[in-house]
């Protein structure tokens, strides 16, 4: 078993690190304070090829594997969560859902423009009244000839006001025997008549990002934009979460590392009782815990990424990785603030931003309570993975690089 990253992976990691340090780090505090997304972020990420990093070349992507997606997520969130969120929703929720569940016609028509970043993609799933209880969503899709008419509202949607297209889950079969069997996904053009969007301000964290709502009033969507089959929406959404969640896990790992490095730096400079505080054992204990948790989080998400590469179902591994890394990142950020003392309580240092950002990930993309239930199901044998009609394709380098 070789735990080393390949030369290719190391170079990708370095490139994304350099990109984030140069393009975002210098102004991230300013944009976080403005509670707005810097306008150059999405075009720059598109130009660098990050938005389609693990999508096959013939569909407009860069042809890298799923581990590359994880590594990029880690390096982006090392600078700020808002950057990783772009990969989570554009690549994880939108592109990979199309790759997994789209027909060949849909992939050929939509993926090249989305994976290249010409269009920005998103995922619109949760609603004001339905988050963890996803089967309770209310947005409807009513068949009308060759179209469906969508009505309802989605909330807490990343890139709501920036995305051009979104995978949207609706309720199209009102008389389904079980609520979750009545759901259907569509790829929706967010510039369609009847779509309105808005930003949510006043969030605790991820303030340099874009989070908002999408309302649909009699939005006409061609039936050929249905993703998967009618009634498959719940399975497709859960599959989407397996990919979005993976990037959240990898990103939170980067946040642990950011908190760790900030803490080591500050503890080396700050002196109390005549010596640097890094020499005090209670400070050492905090740093040691961050150091250990970083390694654990990293191993967990890399294993999930490996399983994706192998084409092996990874719901359990992704759940573990997401839950562990996000809990650990919240802990690391909190301890980083503590190590910084009074300065940690101000925005003079980045650790307060890390703490505010870290709390969101414990809640979104499947709350960590839901992750506990998922893992309990596997552990107790009450949850078993059944084959999906469409599985996330295993990484095949030759196929991914085919023009």
């Amino acid at each position, binding site marked *: 078993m070789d735990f080393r990253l*390949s*030369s*290719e992976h190391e*170079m*990708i990691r*370095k*490139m994304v690190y*350099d*990109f984030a340090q140069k393009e975002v780090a210098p102004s991230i505090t300013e944009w976080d304070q403005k509670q707005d997304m810097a306008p150059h972020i999405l075009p720059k990420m598109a130009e*660098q*090829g990050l938005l389609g*990093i693990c999508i096959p070349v013939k569909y407009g992507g*860069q*042809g*890298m594997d799923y581990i590359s997606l994880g590594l990029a997520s880690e390096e982006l969130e090392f600078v700020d969560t808002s950057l990783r969120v772009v990969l989570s929703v554009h690549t994880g929720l939108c592109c990979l859902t199309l790759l997994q569940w789209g027909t060949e016609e849909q992939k050929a028509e939509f993926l090249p423009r989305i994976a290249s970043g010409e269009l920005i993609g998103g995922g619109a799933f949760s609603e004001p009244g339905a988050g963890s209880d996803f089967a309770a969503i209310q947005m409807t899709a009513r068949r009308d000839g060759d179209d469906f008419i969508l009505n309802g509202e989605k909330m807490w949607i990343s890139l709501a006001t920036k995305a051009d297209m979104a995978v949207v889950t609706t309720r199209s079969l009102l008389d389904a025997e079980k609520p979750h069997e009545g759901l259907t996904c569509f790829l929706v053009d967010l510039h369609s008549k009847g779509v309105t969007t808005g930003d949510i301000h006043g969030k605790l964290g991820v303030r340099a990002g874009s989070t908002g709502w999408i309302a649909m009033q009699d939005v006409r969507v061609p039936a050929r934009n249905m993703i998967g089959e009618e009634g498959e929406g719940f399975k497709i959404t859960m599959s989407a979460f397996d990919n979005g969640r993976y990037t959240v896990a990898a990103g939170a790992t980067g946040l642990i590392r950011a908190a760790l490095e900030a803490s080591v730096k500050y503890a080396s400079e700050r002196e109390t009782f005549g010596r640097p505080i890094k020499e005090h054992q209670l400070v050492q204990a905090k740093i040691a815990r961050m150091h250990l948790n970083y390694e654990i989080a990293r191993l967990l998400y890399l294993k999930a990424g490996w399983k994706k590469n192998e084409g092996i179902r990874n719901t359990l591994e992704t759940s573990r990785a997401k839950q562990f890394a996000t809990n650990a990142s919240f802990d690391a950020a909190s301890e980083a603030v503590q190590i910084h003392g009074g300065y940690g309580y101000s925005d003079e240092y980045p650790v307060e931003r890390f703490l505010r950002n870290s709390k969101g990930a414990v809640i979104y993309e499947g709350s960590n309570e839901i992750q506990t239930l998922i893992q309990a199901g596997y552990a107790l044998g009450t949850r078993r993975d059944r084959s999906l009609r469409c599985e996330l394709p295993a990484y095949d380098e030759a196929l991914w*690089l085919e023009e």
Partner: protein
Amino acid sequence: MNIVVCVKQTVDTAAVISVEGGMVSWGDTPLVLNPWDEFAVEEGLRIREAHGGTVTALTVGKESAQEALRSALAMGADEALLIKDDGLSGADSLVISAVLAGAVQKLGDVDLVLFGREAVDSNAGVLSAQVARRLHWPSLPLVACISALDPASKSLDVERMLDQGRQHVRASLPAVISVVKEINEPRYASFIGIRKASRVDIPVWGVDDLGVPVPDPGVAWLTVENAPQQDVACEFIEAPDEVAAARALVARLREEKVL
């Protein structure tokens, strides 16, 4: 244009350097492509894009120096070459310049050799001039701009960045230049470049392959020691505004007889 970019694998400038057992140590911090060399690689790529040709990244070092070459390939260099020889361990720039000049001659038909202004570990900045001298080519250090380049007439106009200002110089090709950071903005590695760089087999030459005499080093490292620890007292100048702070600082410097 056949362009050779001489690069070096150096320590990351963020590394903590110490001396352990008489040897310089940087802990686990990874080695990187010398940051100044990224500007040289970028300039080589831009010249190739404007005039055609090839960019070859060249280095002297251990096996691990291949990573610096791969970084250059990932940026877009076409070829890479490692000169590796046990006899070069601890070599100074007199030796390295002879090796690099020999490699350039052996490659043949080279129009331009590029260097970054200096390596961040030695900060000597003399290698480009030494290589130029050995090749009997014009030496143009500290170039901030290539204002004109005509491969057909083998002519090169550059602006050199000096303390006194900018110097405009015309030289004939082939030439050796070192570049400063004002010359360009290095591109990031591309995914295509990364893929190519990770797969390519980089040729390795020994000193004997060059067919040129290599001198003995002129510099010998006798001992290496940690810099002496210094106790630094820091006094913060408190003042209501910058003007008052400046006045207070001047007063303190006069008290300490610095001014």
